[in-house]
């Protein structure tokens, strides 16, 4: 597949999917339940684990089918009947046939312990699902009370953090401000490129879930997706330099999660062949430890940046945006890895750049 094989229009035309993940007890159901009552969710289809968990009886106005219900605010709520692919396919088919609302977004609540990577991969590997949907961000909830322990104990919790485009610390009312700050520092260390928010009783602004991953060239959105804030860190920055505290935190986080993160920047454009060859080499050798990769790549001859993103062995098809969002034309790629040193990755890409330099 060439970098330009999908036009930006086609990507923008796919239905965005927000994945909400988090460990057991992190407050996913509470958050989803609150979201379901918000008026802004009137054209959203929400896929939940169980209707029972979120207690929507009072909101319910009609049952579309065994596993789909329409809520009073116009939000469509459904449970996964067989598998997620099937549910997403069924949703689109019913939407097209006019049997359900014209939802404009899907929110998926993942189940508790799970590694969210397979959910993200579902959006890429199923033909029809891929044709109709696009990932618009992973939102990971971390419980301020139990989160620190879970992050130490369960590797899945670390992966949930590493994959996130947005991190939401929940139950902050049950711990001290210092504890929240310590958790915030840990998270920022593990994944400095996700914006961190807090929520009490599942109360968040639904806008946090929208337009997370760029489908159009808008600079503020791209910076916020890549770096978790509106401006990019200095070239060559890594987690510590991205302004997230002192060395002690960094050491603690790496011990806790075995996760490190860094941004690589390259001044010269790549050829697509060189870039994809390096990416393939990296995923084939260390895919399991490549928790998250996201970035803008300057490919020679393309009108705008190529948006790349991947998790472990699977990369989303690259998307060329119609134009560069600002003056900075450098390639900028965020890596969140497990036990892969920055120097190794950087060396690989520099070698590729050297081979293709004119």
């Amino acid at each position: 597949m060439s970098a330009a094989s999908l036009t930006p229009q086609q990507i923008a035309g796919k239905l965005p999917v927000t994945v909400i993940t988090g460990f057991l007890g992190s407050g996913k159901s509470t958050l989803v339940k609150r979201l379901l009552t918000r008026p802004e969710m009137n054209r959203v289809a929400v896929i939940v684990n169980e209707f029972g968990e979120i207690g929507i009886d009072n909101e319910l106005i009609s049952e579309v089918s065994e596993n789909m219900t329409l809520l009073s605010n116009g939000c469509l709520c459904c449970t996964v009947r067989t598998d997620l692919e099937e549910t997403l396919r069924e949703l689109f088919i019913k939407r097209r046939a006019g049997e359900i609302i014209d939802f404009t977004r899907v929110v998926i609540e993942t189940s508790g312990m799970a590694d969210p990577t397979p959910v993200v991969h579902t959006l890429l590997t199923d033909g029809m699902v891929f044709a109709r949907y696009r990932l618009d961000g992973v939102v990971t909830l971390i419980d301020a009370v139990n989160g620190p322990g879970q992050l130490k104990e369960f590797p899945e919790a670390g992966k949930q953090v590493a994959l996130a485009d947005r991190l939401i610390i929940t139950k902050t009312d049950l711990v001290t401000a210092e504890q929240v700050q310590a958790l915030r520092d840990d998270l920022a260390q593990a994944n400095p490129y996700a914006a961190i928010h807090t929520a009490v009783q599942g109360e968040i602004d639904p806008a946090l879930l929208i337009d997370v991953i760029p489908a159009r060239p808008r600079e503020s959105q791209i910076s916020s997706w890549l770096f978790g804030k509106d401006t990019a860190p200095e070239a060559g920055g890594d987690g510590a330099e991205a302004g997230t505290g002192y060395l002690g935190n960094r050491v603690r986080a790496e011990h806790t999660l075995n996760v490190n993160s860094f941004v690589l920047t390259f001044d010269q454009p790549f050829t697509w062949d060189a870039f994809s060859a390096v990416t393939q080499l990296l995923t084939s050798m260390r895919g399991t430890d490549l928790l998250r990769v996201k970035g803008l790549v300057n490919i020679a001859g393309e009108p705008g940046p190529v948006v790349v993103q991947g998790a472990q062995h699977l990369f989303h098809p690259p998307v060329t945006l119609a134009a560069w969002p600002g003056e900075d034309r450098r390639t900028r790629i965020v890596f969140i890895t497990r036990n892969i040193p920055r120097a190794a990755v950087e060396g690989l890409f520099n070698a590729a750049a050297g081979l293709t330099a004119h």
Partner: protein
Amino acid sequence: MTVLAHPGSKAANSLSLNMKLLAHHELDGFGGIGEGMALQQTRDGRRILWLAHESAPKNFTGVDVTDPTKPKMVIQTELPHAKVRSNSLDVVGDLMVVAYQTQTVGLSPAGIDLFDISVPESPKLLSHLDRSGPHSRGVHAVWFVDGEYVHMASGAADFEPHNPLDDQFYQIIDVRDPKNPKEVGRWWYPGTRKGDPEPQPRRLDKKFDCGFRAHNTNVFPQRPDRAYCGWLDGGAVILDIADKTKPKLVANWRYSPPFNGFCHTVLPMFSKNLLVVSDECVQDGGADWPKLVWMVDARDETNLVPIGTFPMPPVAAFGKRGGRYGAHNMHENLPVPTSFQSEDIIFGTFFNGGVRVYNISNPFQPEEIAYFVPGAPPTSPAGAIQINDVYVDENRVIYAADRFGGGIYILEMTI
């Protein structure tokens, strides 16, 4: 828990994907539009959308769409009687051609009118070309894009078909002097006219027999020597019109039977050597399903090979939604400054399936990328929307017209 029918399942609700309604205009209660839509850029800077009505009493309507979010009707004209309809029109500059077709043979007006519309509020009739006759219902569809020739599907006073369903054929009319239009050439399906040496063509079963008539007869500047014609049950026809006085058959892709006839539009994609060919659904309730949009390989124009069809929602979902469900008019890449032209993005109308947009970058697998299905107009006898025609302007603003009471829906794509 009370179980209710889902509101989205009713024809009353709008459905959309990647399209947004900018405005809706019911044309003062006469919102039944045929298959004539054209956009005039006036000398005083306005943009007027001209619409031919599907049936009497109204003839044509002009709507100021300079601001497409605020359409304003500027004129609506009357037909002389209830047994004639205009159905089709085209505009080049300030010259408008309007078709007239009567319900039965022998009536008039049956032909075309030419109007000077330099002042849209008061169109001035320049001439009328009479095509009435004992076996003619006049003109069903016109194609006028170069200011010089009208290509049309019409009967004629001197033409007697074996079968009355075969009365309208291809005619080329010279309108270089718009006050004195003249026929310069014609072609009819061999074997349909009394006296033809050829055998009569094999007709479809009575249930689907719609005739061997011309429908859309399109000529583009890329190939001024070709006319691309939908010929109803005769399929797709390509004519050599290098000599306009003697059109000659180049190719005829005839696919009915086994399909159910009514080939409507043959739209060439010159850069790709492809044709987009649309049928027209003419029966309610899915009775003539499937009526499709075809992708046809035309690398060898004498050997047209279908390679795919445009995906449509299943007939189970729309067949019984009210009225017709199936293909009809396409936006025809009119070679005029106010028309969108693309050989990748194709717009089509599907009656109760609304207006649908396709990406044909991969011609073997056309992809539906957007749609808009308006809710049923309150006055529609079909009980559902019946989107009949679509016109897309150079700014990619989409004008979709309902066949009955809905008027026009002005849309934009959000991708």
